[in-house]
């Protein structure tokens, strides 16, 4: 795949923000993986390492004062880019009361209502109608917002996806459906279980334009999302992006990923979304290797501080058990 990184077209601050967001995700996720190994985090923990450019590039194209994000259980990256404090995120993974859901949601259920990060959903495809409903509210209230709805390649065969696209089209809802095709629905390669191998054509059945995007290229993700968001905001029309990406780790922490080869993983590591952007910026003298190293060190520290915060935080009291069942 030939890639273009026209970094010279962008402000340095914007490029740095993209780079920083991706490094933030990478370092926090690596730390979460370590903490899982130390049994500080339990249950299911789905890491976003390798997919950083998708959340980073797409959320850079929206305005979270009026736009919304809903995603799956692989939600750490989206939450961080939406502005969730890494300490609050880590505390939630640790099940601490200082977590975003007071320790009652965990890794799969990160929510930040104020920042319009509407979860964090655990059932494959089940949140796609919810996101469509948020878009219905925007249209009903005649607001200016747009919804970004993320899901994986595993979700695309769920009825909820197809039902949602149909409704979004008949009601002209301002939503961008984003399939993060990391190529494996848990341990099953997407080509084995899909009648079509290019998902982006699927939305055509509902009269919704679809486009395939290189998910290792954060600038391409940004540009294509920006176009889709513009169409949603200005014309109130839904669209669909299939963003091809790759996760370096298993489906969840308990998955050794034996269904793929070392060579395949290595091939994608050579296309690392962070290094691709960094190298393009270094090549055009926008940053130096030393500056990048400083950024990386900064976020290693942020990840360590997040763990410290989570460690020091209290567990919820038993009285929390019966809180927030009902409003």
């Amino acid at each position, binding site marked *: 795949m030939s890639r273009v990184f026209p970094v010279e077209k962008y402000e340095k601050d914007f490029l740095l923000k993209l780079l920083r967001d991706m490094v933030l995700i990478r370092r926090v996720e690596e730390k979460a993986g370590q903490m899982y190994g130390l049994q500080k985090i339990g249950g299911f923990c789905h890491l976003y390492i390798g997919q950083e450019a998708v959340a980073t590039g797409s959320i850079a194209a929206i305005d979270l004062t009026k736009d919304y994000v809903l995603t799956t259980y692989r939600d750490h990256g989206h939450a961080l880019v939406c502005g969730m404090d890494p300490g609050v995120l880590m505390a939630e993974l640790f099940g601490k009361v200082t977590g975003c859901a007071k*320790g009652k949601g965990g890794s799969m259920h990160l929510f930040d209502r104020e920042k319009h990060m509407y979860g964090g959903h655990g059932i494959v495809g089940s949140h796609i*109608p919810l996101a*469509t409903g948020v878009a219905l509210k925007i249209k009903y209230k005649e607001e200016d917002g747009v919804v970004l709805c993320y899901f994986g390649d595993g979700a695309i065969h769920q009825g909820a996806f197809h*039902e949602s696209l149909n409704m979004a089209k008949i009601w002209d809802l301002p939503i961008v459906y984003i399939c993060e095709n990391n190529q494996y629905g848990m341990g099953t390669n997407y080509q084995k279980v899909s009648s079509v191998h290019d998902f982006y054509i699927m939305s055509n059945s509902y009269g919704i334009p679809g486009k395939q995007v290189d998910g290792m290229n954060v600038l391409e993700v940004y540009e294509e999302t920006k176009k889709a968001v513009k169409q949603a905001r200005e014309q109130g029309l839904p669209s669909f992006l299939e963003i091809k990406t790759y996760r370096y780790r298993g489906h969840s922490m308990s998955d050794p990923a034996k269904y793929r080869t070392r060579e395949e993983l290595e091939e994608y590591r050579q296309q690392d979304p962070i290094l691709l952007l960094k190298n393009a910026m270094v090549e055009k003298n926008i940053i130096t290797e030393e500056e990048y190293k400083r950024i990386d060190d900064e976020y290693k520290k942020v990840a360590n501080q997040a763990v410290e915060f989570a460690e020091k935080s209290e567990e919820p009291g038993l009285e929390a058990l019966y809180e927030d*069942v009902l409003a």
Partner: protein
Amino acid sequence: MPIITYREALRSAMDEEMARDENVILLGEEVGQYDGAYKVSQGLLDKYGPKRVIDTPITEEGFTGVGIGAAMAGLRPIVEWMTFNFSIMALDQVINNAAKMRYMSGGQFKVPIVFRGPNGPAEYLAAQHSQALQSLFVHIPGLKVVAPATPYDAKGLLKSAIRDDNPVVFLEGELMYSWKGEVPEEEYLIPIGKADIKREGSDVTIVTYSKPLRIAEQAAQELEKQGIQAEIVDLRSLRPIDEETIYNSVKKTNRCVIVDESWPMVSVASHVGWMVSKFCFDYLDAPVELVTSEDVPMPYNHKLELAAQPSVEKVIKAVKKVLYI
């Protein structure tokens, strides 16, 4: 006081609440142009327009989820399921999303939504279109469940359900839509979670809700002729359930029969039976009796389908059993 049908009472509740709060919308199959599969929403499209009365495709999971998402974002949707038989297609949305959103977000979200439609057996509809599914919903923390049996209760409870900040499952009945009753013109609300004594008596407590209320009332009239005074507790709300009213009645009559048109296993009837057996143990003069539907799918044949459901005869028999006569 004006006498109106159960259907008109529901319509009037939705109409008043839609007029009161522009965040209230109605969506579902055939709710608009067709005026509702059972004509509950008749006239609402004309009055409030297609923006607020939304005809959906036949996609129960999809439009139920759309309603829940809209509720998370600030609207107060009423989702009409053409019947609860089709709600099974939407169970994931109700159980995994509506009921849990508040808890798993640490209290960040409320989900003010009503899921309503006809539940329970009708006539000649066979196994897939004639079933009482309340147990599925009553089981789930994070939901409220109500099942009014009269036009008065239907209107007051639906208005409360629409104003509630939680997901409320609202059970109606195809055969109940034409039932008539007194409903005042002035506004009123009935709080969710309060049972109602529909008939006072001293010899036996009959606990019931929804459509079997009529069976219980007919049985009570028959029993009265035989000198037996039955008290009828209409639960109205199934979750939360009004334990106090049930216990107070049983402590007075010392005998309890529960009439429930759902299946017997893990049901409202079995739960209330356990509660009464445990918390009124010292007051009971006989074991609690349950009258439920038979433990079979609904047959099409009319004689068989009637035999599958609670009846006046079955209730009288159960009452006589707890009275040892």
